[in-house]
């Protein structure tokens, strides 16, 4: 299972990359594989308030619509516009060009509570059974 060490993970299969006071968020490789080909991404508005554990975006494949939860609370400061015309980036590069949004964390220490790569791999493995 591909889960880079430098990222943090939520139980809902989002990854978080902490950059100072902000966090870049996407869905994990495991999550994109479960979804199959992504055809549409419903993105939050810039400026929207994200509440940890609450849905903030949605990723759709031909057969499923999945919520993307905010792994930490904060304010959306950027969304990945490239996903509008190329939602398949989530499949081809989930941890890179397939990032979904960036938020300014209300509590920058909150990310520390998320899983590390090792813990996430175990979590995902238990879900795939």
């Amino acid at each position, binding site marked *: 299972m591909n889960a880079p060490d430098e990222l943090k993970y939520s139980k809902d299969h989002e990854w978080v990359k902490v950059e100072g006071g902000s966090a870049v968020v996407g869905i994990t490789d495991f999550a994109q594989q479960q979804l199959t*080909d992504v*055809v*549409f991404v419903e993105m939050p508005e810039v400026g929207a308030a994200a509440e940890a554990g609450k849905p903030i975006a949605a990723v759709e494949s*031909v057969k499923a619509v999945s919520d993307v939860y905010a792994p930490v609370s904060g304010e959306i400061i950027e969304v990945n516009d490239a996903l*509008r*015309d190329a939602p398949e980036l989530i499949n081809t590069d989930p941890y890179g060009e397939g990032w979904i949004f960036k938020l300014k964390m209300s509590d920058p220490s909150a990310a520390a509570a998320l899983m590390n790569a090792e813990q996430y791999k175990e979590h995902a493995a238990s879900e795939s059974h």
Partner: protein
Amino acid sequence: MAKIVIVGLGAGGFAALLAARKTDRNAEIVVIDRKDYDLMHPCGIPYAVEGAIGSIDNLKHDLNMKAMRVAHYKNYIADSINLAEKTVRAHSAFSGDEEFFAYDKLIISTGSTPLVPPVEGLEGLLGKGAFTVATPEDASRLRAAARATGKALVIGAGAIGLETASALSDMGCEVVVVEMLGGVFPRALDPDMAAILQQYLEEKKISLRLGSSVQAVRGSSQVEEAVVDGEAVPCSILVVGAGVRPNSSIAADAGLNVSRFGIVTNEKMLSSDSSVYAVGDCAESFDLIRKKPCWMPLSTIAYRQGTIAGANAAGADESFKGVVGAFVSKVGEMEIAAVGLTSQAAVDAGFDPVFGKLKDLTRPDWYPNGREITIKVIADKSTRKILGAQAAGSGAAWRVNVVSAAISSGMTLEQLSDVELAYCPPVSQTYDCLSKAVDLAIRKIK
């Protein structure tokens, strides 16, 4: 009794002849054509090279001219038209004898000629390993050459070039396709859709050189190599698939209005002379999306224009609305279809395009042997009108044909989304990929 003269018996001339006879049982109909047989099917040539239609002579087709009471002058070449006297001057290819044909109504359906690009050495090697793809004779010679030799280079990645490349490859030739523009079917496909066919060609071991051009063709008595971007590429067959040009000089010389798209026509298919019609590859068409003249050398369009002109020449009053460019090609096993504008063409025409696109299976995933298809539907953001569609894979054509109907009737995304598509598992899905693509485009605008 009306006297109708038709110059050129291809798709357009044939349709005109049928329509004229249906409209007026008594009209006197004269057909002049330079071939020594009746009809020929150019669209079958690449497939004939590959052997798909049996004998190459199956491309030729005889008509019952006697039953239709048509005076058919085979082997006659039309040389000039006198609009004031209403006559066509033609000569026999055998005797050279000249003859004048008087008309009340004239239909010009002289088709097009392959464009031979000004590449150093090419002209002199035509017929000596270098071929255009336009006649059954071309097909025979290409087939013989492909059997005898192993390396072919094709200029142009349009339908003629790619269909021929695939035929030669299936016959065991090593094939290189050289295209000046950045992708295959550059006028019909967006780069992302072209990439699907490009990958298929790669798998088929047909090598593509995009954004490249042939500077010279060399050989002492036969083609031996082509120079591509300064590099010598050995080949014994060179196929010219660089497009076609309208055969409109006979009309221009007579004083009819001719644009860069061919003979200028109105919606009655009339030229600038009220007794002369022009149809098919030699004539201009009207682009229904951009609302301006265009040129679309397709058999389907030639036939439909011919039907209108033939009927009108015999006394009817029918109109040809225009074209949206519905197109399909089969390159090896890959069916690839398109209609309307590409995303770039839409931007160039002043639209604000949005698209819905996905890759799907032609059958439900629980039903075996579904085939892959990728479809893209393009619309204008502000008016929501459908502008185009492209599809690659099994069933590409029928889906694009539905979009063709939507475009010509001015439908919006929402109206196309409402169209019911028939379903049963071995044929399609409950929610077909065409509807899915349309709905994705709608969601993107919301």
